């Protein structure tokens, strides 16, 4: 059996003793697993737990491996798991290009890094946006910049916390396709939490509840 992908092994999330989630699953590279549950059921806390930012009062047990690496004892900054929130959390005091540079790891000269940021923007239909103020961007443009920032950090997996729910209905589908095309092309295992069946359908992968039972996204 291959080590590639994100493995949750008997992972249990509890809030002061009460069980919120119990999951054993393997997310293969390029696959999107959707977790569907009502709001307030602990979806966001589960994602926080996966990146190693467990909120106070929660406990996590079980194993978590990414491409063969044991993540359970690692701090967030060392896990190499990207994260997209419901809101895009761009840093409004930085330019669009600086927001992306914030994601780009070390390597290459400053000139090549600037070129890499410019190329990523051009590739996403945002050519010449590097010096723009994020506040002047549309919702769809902000969502794309936030995704680019997460991907430029070269994560080995990506977690999406209802990232499309704030977008207009027309835009939502476009950004979904943009996102999943990227994660498939980069072979990233992706976990998407959502309460929107349309998100889960668009993801095209298995759809589960927080206890690993299949849910039909209708």
């Amino acid at each position, binding site marked *: 059996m291959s080590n590639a992908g994100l493995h949750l092994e008997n992972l249990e999330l509890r809030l002061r003793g009460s069980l919120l989630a119990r999951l054993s699953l393997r997310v293969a590279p390029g696959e999107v697993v959707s977790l569907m549950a009502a709001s307030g059921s602990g979806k966001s806390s589960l994602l926080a737990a996966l990146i190693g930012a467990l909120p106070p009062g929660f406990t996590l047990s079980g194993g978590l491996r990414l491409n063969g690496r044991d993540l359970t004892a690692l701090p967030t*900054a*060392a896990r190499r798991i990207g994260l997209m929130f419901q809101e895009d*959390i761009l*840093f409004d*005091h930085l330019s669009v290009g600086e927001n992306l540079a914030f994601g780009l*790891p070390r390597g290459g000269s400053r000139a090549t890094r600037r070129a890499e940021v410019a190329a990523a923007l051009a590739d996403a239909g945002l050519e010449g946006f590097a010096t723009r103020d994020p506040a002047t961007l549309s919702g769809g443009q902000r969502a794309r910049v936030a995704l680019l*920032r997460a991907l430029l950090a070269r994560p080995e997996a990506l977690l999406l916390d209802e990232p499309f729910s704030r977008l207009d209905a027309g835009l939502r589908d476009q950004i979904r396709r943009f996102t999943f095309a990227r994660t498939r092309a980069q072979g990233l295992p992706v976990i998407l939490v959502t309460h929107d069946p349309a998100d889960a359908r668009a993801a095209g992968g298995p759809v589960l509840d927080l206890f690993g039972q299949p849910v039909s996204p209708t």
Partner: protein
Amino acid sequence: MTARPALHGGRLLTLAPGLALAVLVLPVLGGLLTSFAPGFGPDGFARLRGWPGLPGAVRLSLVTGLGSTAIALALAALILAMLVDRPAFGVLRRLLSPLLAVPHAAAALGLAFLIAPSGWIVRALSPWATGWKVPPDLLILNDPMGLALMLGLVAKELPFLLLMGLAALPACDAPRRLTVAAALGHGRLQGFAFAVWPPLYARLRLPVLAVLAYAMTTVEMAAILGPSLPPTLSLQVAQWMSDPGLRALPTAAAGAALQFALVLAAMAGWLLAERVGRAALRWRLWGGRRATGLDPAARVLAGVAGFGLAALLLLSLAGLGLWSLAGLWPFPAALPEGIGLQVWRNTAPSLLASLGLTLLIALVSTGAALALVLGCLEAETRRGRRPSASIEALIYLPLLVPQIAMLPGLQMLALAAGFQGHWPAVAAAHLVFVLPYVFLSLAPAWRSMDPRLSLLAASLGAAPGRILWRLRLPLLLAPVLTAAALGLAVSVGQYLPTLLIGGGRVGTLTTEAVALASGGNRRLIGAWGLAQLVLPALGFALALALPRLIFRNRRALLVGGGR
């Protein structure tokens, strides 16, 4: 609370904002202009230039002011970055919040007792570790470099900056920004610096500049902890001002003008350094380093600095208390040989008289400030719009203009008008400095109140006055009392306004304690230093207890309401 008649047609209310602005602006401008005028006579600046201590005094003012502000700000940022979501932070916050109300003079007196060559720290280490059987001949206190003064300033300003930062943090979306930064691989310290600090600092800028202005020009802390030959420029100006025949008035005026220019120059330099810092941050951002290796050391430093300075202040205050009770206490002994109330008993009559006067001045100035602030906020609520940001920034004016630059002028004006030396004049001077703190403390709570409540009350037929007295004020009782307690503490701590406007004849606890400091009777200093804490402590205790008592059957008002 009984229902009172509504403020008729809001006539008084429409006056409140203008009145408050007048209190904030006129004394500052009038004071500055009058302060500097005598300096431009024939011999003001010439005599100042002729003073051999001038270069040293100027250097001291710049180094201690800029140095202590930069260190206190850096430590506050470090603690906010590394500890804010840790359990230890709750402890630190509970330790530091009450220390905010400690008057600067009391903190300085306690610190002096602690670090002096014959102080508690040396005693604790002698003779077993140091071998000293008599107090060493070291200039730990009043050192010519001003290090003791800087330590005192850092210890006193850190809690202020930390709590201001903590108040501004929720508006900066810090938790999620830190999570995003960590998920992108950044270390905690660096993630904070890139993602949270710029918007946070933008909200801290005015408080930081106020700290800078105070640190460069403090008179009471410089008198207790600072060097004497030469002293800081502000202390020297205050001494010239206190010269009985006002013979040194032109020199003092020239010195005050120079001090004001120095503060303006330091602020300009500070704002320039901000730009350099921003550029450096951007440069580093494009470099792509993750700096996760800095975090362990940063976390240790933050803990040591935070708890170390809190311990220093607490030990300082404990030292004041112990000295006031001490019987015979020969040098290397760590504790006195006997404990008694002798000193307290002897000094009680004058102490109580001074306590009463201090309370009277504090109540009058705080009451006036509270009335003005409530009037401004109520007028703003009824009008439905806030003053512009630039008008609101004027709140900081009395905190940004050094007292030593404007008070000599106010003193001359008070003298000319025949007010000098009477307590109402002192209370009026306190009002200028109490008003900003009361406003800054109360406005956020007032503005965060759900506007639907008063809309609902109005739809039930309640007049605006009734809504104010029966609805808004009772609901905001806790923040109103907290603002009043803060105002009280600020008034009690005022040194220079009391000294100059009081003409040395209005002896509050703070002026008396600082005056005693040069005498060297430690037991007496301990008692008077500690007495300075009594009124602020009582004020905050009442602000905590009263809402709990009054609303003991109203659970929603108690949860978090008693902060």
